[in-house]
């Protein structure tokens, strides 16, 4: 079953890449942006077919490797 996880930077963590992307978009004429924060997206195909268990497995992955909880939050956003 496929499970996706989104890793985002916590609110107080500086995101220089997001800032530069924001500035570039602004220069291209996209003037309606308040802020951009860059994150990571993982599509994980796990062998588990039970959605609840599959999510739990991915949550463990997020805690132990995919996210660094000092600076990042994770969200498991969809299961198929």
């Amino acid at each position, binding site marked *: 079953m496929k499970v996706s996880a989104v890793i985002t930077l916590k609110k107080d*963590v*500086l995101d*220089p*890449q997001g800032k*530069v992307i924001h500035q570039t978009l602004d220069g291209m004429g996209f003037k309606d942006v308040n802020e951009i924060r860059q994150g990571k997206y993982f599509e994980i195909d796990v062998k588990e077919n039970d959605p609840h268990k599959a999510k739990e497995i991915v949550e463990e992955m997020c805690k132990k*490797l*995919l996210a*660094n909880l*000092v*600076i990042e939050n994770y969200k498991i956003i969809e299961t198929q």
Partner: protein
Amino acid sequence: MKSSVITFPGSNCDRDMDVALSKFGFKNKMVWHDDNELPKSDLVVLPGGFSYGDYLRCGSMASKSKIMQSVINFAKSGGLVMGICNGFQILVETGLVPGVLLRNKYLEFICKNVYVKVVNKQNPYFKNLDKDILELHIAHNEGNYFCTDDQLKEINENNQIAIYYCDEKGHTEEQHNPNGSLKNIAGIFNKEKNVLGMMPHPERMIDQSLSGEDGSIFFKNLINNLK
């Protein structure tokens, strides 16, 4: 004195570290990341480089490699573990030292000499060092030290800051901060001070004709402290 330098796939300062440690009297062994056991060591060094191509987050993959369990156990039993540059990034990913290293504030890879101020000499690394300011080399893309407010409080309470970026006179204002590090932090200890992570490379400053000698001062002092 025996030392071990761990080589990860993508380490590139491991041999420089070997040269430096050997030059100042350590009997050094190179240890492969996929080994299970550390050889008997008085000092373990995680060298600089780009382990696992900096995939996911710098140091994150290396921190989970086989040898690291042995390194973590060694550190927890009081053994000296020093992480330089990528080695520092690996140390924060293991949780042996607090905080993280973010992308440099101005998104530039920085490669230059800097000055650092040694602020804590109550530890085996800097005890008896007769200089307070060292000129060392940095070369990194992710050296912007960051930690949570709670971690910073604990770091201050336990005197865990090892070195600050500064100018040649030791001033630690923001303009002497190359990468945006919180409070100009260039290196940090664990609570017990047997684990040291720092971005600057002392092993690149061991030859007057090539660079400078402040790395020599550091290594000579370190081995004397361990004798």
